[in-house]
């Protein structure tokens, strides 16, 4: 339960970030359902995907299994991607710093593959996605504590082309 709350806070804080996510130690104050407000992001834009859908899913320690949370985010991603068929993704797997470098590269690859495979199972064409692993090299949250690590264990669906600008 506590972990779920942390992840939810993380999703909210990530959603509140600019396109180059900066660390935000405190949970975002605004609700994540920004799209419901009249001045939401442009539909089909990178911002729309990030804020209205959620571009990151999170994992347990040394895990690559998709949580219920992760599946629902990926389902929203798949629906959005069906709506905007010209969009291409880079699915990047990330790890926390509590593992060694090469192992984490392999673990990040597993996380990215798990996200990609689930999107494919939901009807997103495999050739619209590339995967990469950043291992523990690209933490979202620079701090060295459980909260930061739980945020840093993620798969990031990054739009590389085809979004409405």
């Amino acid at each position, binding site marked *: 339960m506590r972990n779920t709350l942390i992840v939810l806070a993380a999703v909210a804080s990530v959603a509140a970030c600019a396109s180059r996510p900066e660390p935000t130690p405190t949970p975002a104050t605004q609700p994540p359902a920004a799209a419901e407000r009249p001045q939401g992001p442009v539909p089909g834009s990178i911002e729309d995907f990030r804020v209205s859908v959620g571009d990151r899913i999170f994992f347990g320690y040394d895990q690559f299994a998709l949580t219920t949370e992760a599946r629902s985010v990926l389902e929203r991603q798949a629906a959005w991607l069906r709506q905007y068929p010209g969009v291409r993704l880079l699915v990047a797997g990330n790890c926390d710093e509590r593992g060694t*470098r*090469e*192992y984490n*590269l*392999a673990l990040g690859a*597993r996380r990215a593959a798990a996200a990609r495979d689930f999107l494919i199972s939901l009807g997103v064409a495999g050739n619209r996605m590339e995967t*990469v*692993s950043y291992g523990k090299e690209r933490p979202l949250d620079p701090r060295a504590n459980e909260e930061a690590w739980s945020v840093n264990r993620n798969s990031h669906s990054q739009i590389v082309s085809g979004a409405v600008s």
Partner: protein
Amino acid sequence: MMRVIKGITAAFALLCAVAWTATPAAAQTPAPASTQGRLHVDITEGHLNPMPVAVVDFIAASPPAAQVGRDVAQVIRANLERSSLFRSVAPAAFIERIQAMDVPPRFGDWRIIDAQALTVGQVTALPDGRVRIEFKLYDIFAEQFLTGFSYSTTPDNWRRIAHRISDQIYEQLTGERGYFDTRIVFVSESGPRTRRVKRLMIMDQDGANPFFLTGPDAMVLTPRFSPSAQLITYMSYETGAPRVFLYNLETNRREVLGDFPGMTFAPRFAPDGNDVVFTLDMNGNAEIFAMDLRSRQRRRLTNHPAIDTSPSYSPDGAQVVFNSDRGGSPQLYVMAADGSGQRRISFGDGRYSTPVWSPRGDLIAFTRQGGGRFAIGVMRPDGSGERILTESYLDEAPTWSPNGRVIMFFREGRGEGPRIWSIDLTGRNLRQLPTPTEASDPAWSPLLP
């Protein structure tokens, strides 16, 4: 003291092209009728009483040569001190003033200041612009000449000669090859943790002559030397996805190794230098492959849905140790070089990774993670005799000195940047290496050719 050579690529070209002549130095001093045993340091024990060695400033006929003589002696003293096997007797205590190389020292003058070994030397400017650097090593109590060499080289190459002399002294007094004429390649780190800049950097074993090999644009990881020390294999994001690269230190050219469908990482050379073993990840399944560098033929060594990564050859090339989580958590496994006979060797508490086979073949160094901490340890290739050398919030990525007696690794404090450290196999002599920036992923070269 740390005189950095300017003109970095030129400096390396010089290092490669050193034509050094090693000739046994002049006539052996007649040994006195002593029955004392050979002067010897036992390297396998912890050293609470390092052997006192006196290193005299090398004598010279001209002021520039005398400066080289002082610098050479200082580098030798620093090397011996850092090994912790030796203690440099303070030059201020010296009684005899050495004035000629061909006259034996007054052993009593050195005995009285408690020196057990004495190094004297001379620097001579040669007519062709080069210098000749000679040294002699004496056993003070046996009143015996032990060894000596003469090297001719370009004046700016004095530092390598100092390292070679240090290696000669170490070898003579311990019976083991030294490790001073070596280099370290590592990842230089800068910038905030969320946008880290990671570049390849190389320097001498003592931290002198550091310079970048790659630029700030592409993140690089895990460099490792070839057995000739002329090539480095590493991982880079230069072309987007992680790829294993080869960097040639002679030409300063780099190339991607092979054309693979997934990402490639965790490369290491075979001990004969003919192939590179690495991890190829295809759709989330990391497997170990080897590629022959001449034929560019690849062979697959593992075939398992678990993570298989971090391969490292045994020095005879017959076996490969690697990291796999096929048993539920990351552990160490050994297989034959053709992939057969895969078996787990780590059974202690915790998660084991980054195995590296010792150049002597008798031990495997690793990173062990447990209880919220990371440790560097060693075990025998059959998994027995596990011993932890050091641990902290994060200790990772051991690399062996070429004689298998010292291990370097990187250490990160909680929320802090990494630095490179070294520790003796005895578990003593923990030291931080001087690096110009924060630094990780060290790799120790073989003795330079």
